[in-house]
């Protein structure tokens, strides 16, 4: 059995590649436009607020750095889950998938804590333009992470039933692509939103 066949990829398509994977990449391309627009809107409006709090008043860089590190490490565990199932190691898949989901939950919890702190400091969705664009951008990212965690947990539950095999590793690969995309979006947000503040 060829590697491609073992990976569950159907090759008899008009493009010569698996349509499901092609569709996922097309979706991720469209997501670039979605987040690109939100990030651009944030940069346009963050320093046009007439009332505080302003970014430098609320951001906690050490805390957000830990969150960024957690999400980054979840990408490592995700790709290790894929590597495991591509070798037929179902136990490895379960361990790394669950680890990834836990790290995702930790990241979301951190974001919930951060939002709560900002709210206590007087920054809400309606306070000023910074608050509006910040919460919309990071809120949509958090929603994507939440969807990713649900996808991971559903694959984990399916795997526990013995239904995710080496031949069906494509499902793990597709989930991984989505998860890594969520990670690269945070790489950009962490730099442009948190570390680079108005001069």
């Amino acid at each position, binding site marked *: 059995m060829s590697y*491609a066949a073992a990976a569950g990829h159907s090759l008899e398509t008009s493009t010569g590649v698996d349509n499901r994977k092609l569709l996922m990449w097309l979706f991720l391309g469209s997501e670039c436009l979605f987040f690109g627009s939100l990030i*651009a809107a944030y940069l346009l409006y963050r320093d046009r607020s007439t009332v505080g709090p302003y970014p430098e008043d609320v951001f906690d860089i050490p805390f957000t750095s830990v969150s960024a590190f957690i999400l980054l490490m979840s990408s490592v565990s995700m*790709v290790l889950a894929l590597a495991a199932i591509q070798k037929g190691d179902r136990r490895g898949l379960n361990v790394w998938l669950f680890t990834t989901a836990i790290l995702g939950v930790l990241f979301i919890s951190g974001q919930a804590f951060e939002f709560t702190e900002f709210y206590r400091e007087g920054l809400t969705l309606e306070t000023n333009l910074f608050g509006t664009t910040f919460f919309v951008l990071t809120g949509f990212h958090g929603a994507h992470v939440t969807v990713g965690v649900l996808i991971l947990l559903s694959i984990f539950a399916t795997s526990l039933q013995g239904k995710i095999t080496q031949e069906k590793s494509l499902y793990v690969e597709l989930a991984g692509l989505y998860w890594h995309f969520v990670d690269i979006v945070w790489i950009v947000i962490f730099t442009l939103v948190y570390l680079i503040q108005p001069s």
Partner: protein
Amino acid sequence: MTLAEYRKREGIEPVDGAGHAVDSAHAEKHPGALEYVQIGSILAIVTAIEVAIYYVGLSHTALVLALIVLSAFKFSLVVLWFMHLKFDDRLFSTMFLIGFLLALVIFTVATSTIGGKLV
């Protein structure tokens, strides 16, 4: 003529012995666990450097340039190795790059014309 047949004819896509297009997404084997851990370690170190640079007290322009370069490096590592674009079919890269470059154009036009600024 399908895209697969065109790509085969143009030599874009390798073919197997039966004349079927080989999924070049997997023609080259993905990296192993050790390489993934090494990449992850590099990502962690670069993130630490980013945070350190934030506190060093560089001029704003130098800070922005350094952070953007490091961020682009991390972005590339994840996309090329973890998402396998370095090893997968170019069609996947094309799909992603179309969206990414369009987003970059929108971002650049919006920030340069409406007045947002990084530096």
